[in-house]
């Protein structure tokens, strides 16, 4: 628009009008692709939200007619049924306890190890790091047999407490690597100053390093919580009675009747356990991305 004012570009108009046209087409195609991707990622969530808000008779009637993409009636009956018929509260509480406890243990153990591996020049640090990485790749389903036998012999089957220990196989490798990488980047001067002032190593770790490392600790905590919250394999192998189920396991028992699967009930539970994770992703998106990539690029 302002180009007309500048005499030097007077010869350009023909070329300029063509380039934007091609660019507009390309931009439009790009945005269409973006919309398609977002739809594929999010539409299924809309569909379970929609299904969870149907009544039992609407589910029985099937999709179509008044129960199309946007149903004519919505009801919260599945959400109350999940708690009354499904007793979903207990599994939810179990999952929260286990995921939080796993996160706390992971953070304590992984920060200690991460600090030692980053700073204290122990012999065999490379081998230890390699082992920790390898443990993260260990096939979970190969472990369940022996762990089942061990838990059975100490009478700890069908209890949520052993899960806190076994879930560490998901969380410790990534958390230790992440924190070790972060500790390595903290300037040494900070610690040296505290050591000069007569602080012990452990005091330095607690009072200097951990406060500086809060962002990394937070990232490790979020990832640990997600990984522990998401487990299914250990829970389905070790837990047998509904009162001890974790939330993901409880969902698989919902909505089954002889003639009909009540997807409204299943999907209400699915929506409920998705909420904490969705909130974590929305509020801590950057940290999760940073943690995922820092944990693996080494």
């Amino acid at each position, binding site marked *: 628009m302002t180009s007309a004012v500048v005499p030097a570009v007077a010869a350009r108009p023909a070329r300029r009008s063509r380039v934007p046209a091609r660019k507009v087409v390309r931009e439009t195609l790009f945005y269409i692709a973006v919309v398609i991707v977002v739809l594929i990622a999010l539409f299924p969530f809309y569909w379970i939200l929609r299904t969870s808000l149907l009544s039992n008779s609407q589910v029985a009637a099937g999709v179509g007619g008044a129960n199309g993409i946007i149903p004519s009636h919505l009801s919260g009956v599945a959400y109350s049924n999940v708690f009354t018929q499904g007793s979903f509260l207990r599994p939810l509480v179990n999952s929260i306890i286990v995921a939080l406890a796993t996160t706390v243990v992971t953070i304590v153990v992984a920060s200690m190890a991460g600090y030692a591996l980053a700073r204290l020049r122990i012999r065999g640090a490379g081998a230890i790091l390699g082992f920790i990485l390898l443990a993260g790749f260990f096939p979970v389903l190969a472990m369940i047999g022996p762990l089942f036998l061990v838990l059975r012999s100490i009478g700890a089957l069908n209890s949520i407490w052993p899960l806190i220990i076994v879930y560490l196989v998901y969380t410790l490798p990534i958390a230790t690597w992440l924190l070790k990488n972060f500790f390595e980047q903290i300037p040494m001067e900070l610690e040296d100053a505290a050591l000069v002032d007569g602080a012990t190593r452990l005091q330095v770790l607690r009072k200097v390093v951990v406060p500086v490392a809060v962002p990394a600790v937070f990232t490790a905590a979020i990832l640990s919580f997600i990984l522990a919250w998401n487990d299914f394999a250990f829970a*389905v192998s070790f837990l047998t009675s509904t009162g001890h189920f974790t939330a993901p396991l409880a969902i698989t028992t919902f909505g089954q009747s002889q003639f009909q699967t009540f997807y409204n009930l299943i999907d209400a539970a699915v929506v409920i356990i998705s909420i904490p994770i969705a909130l974590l992703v929305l509020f801590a998106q950057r940290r999760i991305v940073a943690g995922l990539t820092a944990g693996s690029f080494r």
Partner: protein
Amino acid sequence: MSDSQSTGNAATAVDGTATEGRPARAGRPALVKRLMPERRRPAPVGHARETSDRRLGYMLVAPVVILLLAITAYPLIYNIWNSFHFDNLSFGGLPHNFVGWSNFSKMFKSAQWVSALERTLVFTVVTIVFDIVVGLALALMMHRQFRGRGFLRASILVPWAMPTVVSAMLWKTMFDPSAGFVDYILGAFHPAWSSIAWLGANEWRSWIAIFIADSWKNIPFVAILLLAGLQVIPNDVYEAARMDGASWWQSFTRVTLPLLKPALSVALIFRTLQALLVFDVIYIMTGGGPGNSTQTLSFLNYQTFIINTDFGLGGAMSILLVLLALAVSFVYVRAFRPSTN
């Protein structure tokens, strides 16, 4: 403790004074790199602190090592022991006799195990090819600067962060003939397509549903990893390629892909292992059916251990699974090594 502290102070003082080399190195970009060599230099006065530091280091590292050994190495050894013994809880009265290789020969002769192995390998190959290609496309999309990029990234990240039970149940709903969206929309094209049974009726359709649910959840992870890899590539490499008159495709194949190799190998290996060990989505969507047609190695392991309580045969299967995972991890380490130099 106080002794080591005082020597520690001395060590720092020496470190502080004995670093004439520092100004010369000040130009180095990374603070860490500048500091690390100095720390490694043996400082005689600081020897006591080094020793006490090291002792503390072992104490701090011990919990991680002990816990991970207890959850991985102990079951592995237990599995090796079990795989050479008869150990089945369904026959609790029978003694746990040494049976040699019979669990292994039973496994190799089992048609169920062999076909589970084949299925798992095919699933793994198809999955990693598809996930890497689509994940790379998504990464390139997110790498562009445009309005709504943050929203795109968040909406891609949400499926990844969800429990597998969510992605599996969600797609089970989507593929259900009476409650799902898939048949509803297919029915708009052809009436006969409005009631296709996907899960539990037909082997191929079951696999398609499993494959979609698994990819939908796991491609985001690949995309985020590759995006991080793209962001590390300096812009002037592309500038140089453009100066030389490279087309988009040329700069993609000659610049982007080679420089993306570290990120690609990480994504590849994570996805390979996840696909090789696929379990949750199968258990929830098909329970291994129809028949045994969607059973994978991990599923069979679960069934042998927990349902059949055969810890001898299960132990043999576990060892094969661990060996497979180890082989893949080994490839990973090999492929990844050059980039760390």
